């Protein structure tokens, strides 16, 4: 088993500063149609940790009468944030589908406020990446927490140039 106790910086991570990761993950969420169309922003990256911001729009509501955000928006946001943490938490970016995700809803998310997501990789093994994420609208008042596990498909199942494409360096392929 080539397991590691703590997520570490590998070759592809070591050469990147937080700002280039922010640019790379911004490119990642702007290539995904769903997060691009919702205007999701990557605010800060410090591998294996990310912070994102989903700007407010009325379509995020799940109950127009009570002015509450749709719980599914929060699940989608946690999946995206945890998945982005995975990309920057591996020695080199790999394609890692979500195996499962669990979301606890601490308090309702309300209309009119942006939703922020923080996520980090907790542990990397040869086959899995374990993550956790938190959402809030006002600092210190978590609206939801998620725990997501991602499967490592490995370098063999990751398209050549995947990591380079993330950083906009794919032209030599």
């Amino acid at each position, binding site marked *: 088993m080539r397991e590691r106790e703590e997520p570490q910086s590998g070759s592809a991570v070591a050469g990147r500063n937080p700002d280039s990761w922010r640019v790379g993950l911004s490119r990642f969420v702007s*290539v995904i149609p*769903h997060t691009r*169309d919702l205007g999701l922003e990557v605010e800060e990256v410090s591998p294996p940790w990310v912070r994102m911001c989903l700007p407010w729009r009325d379509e995020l*509501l*799940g109950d127009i*009468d009570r002015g509450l955000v749709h719980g599914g928006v929060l699940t989608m946001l946690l*999946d995206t944030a945890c998945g982005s943490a995975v990309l920057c938490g591996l020695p080199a970016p790999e394609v890692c589908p979500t195996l499962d995700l669990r979301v606890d809803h601490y308090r*309702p998310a309300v209309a009119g406020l942006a939703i922020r997501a923080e996520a980090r990789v907790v542990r990397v093994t040869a086959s899995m990446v374990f993550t956790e994420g938190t959402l809030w609208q006002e600092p210190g008042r978590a609206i939801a927490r998620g725990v997501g596990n991602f499967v490592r498909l490995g370098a063999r199942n990751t398209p050549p140039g995947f990591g380079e494409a993330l950083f906009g360096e794919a032209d030599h392929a």
Partner: protein
Amino acid sequence: MHEGFRDVAWLARTHAEGNVAAWLERLPYARLIGVSATPDEEGEGLIYQLEPREFNVGNILLPALHGGVVAAFMETAGTLDLMLSAREPRLPRIVDFSIDYLRTARVVPTHARCRLLREGRRLANVQVTAWQESEDQPVATARLHLVLGALEPNDA
């Protein structure tokens, strides 16, 4: 207000009619991703649908639906199905949600069926299964815990 979730009479009427479409009207994000419900032709209850919109794509290489959108679809289905099959008109609020991804969800129509495993006085447990081509090859299963809110007559 004479319509909507805060209007007790409206909620009672739509509950009695089984008018899930009226509830969906008031869920903007569910409409944004394209959720609908139709009667199950081969049984009782409803089958829920998620439209294969470009907006719902989460992986352009495969391509595949965004796992979070599939989750939002299943949470919507589970919540609406609980409101429909609850003994009385109730307003559920989600407590926690868990989803297992079983197969890649392609950009084709996705369906879901729900089972209300328990409806207590305060809490409900709903199981949701989603599939695409064949119901015996699910793309995901999900589980919801919801608190059943009491209706306040003066809330309207």
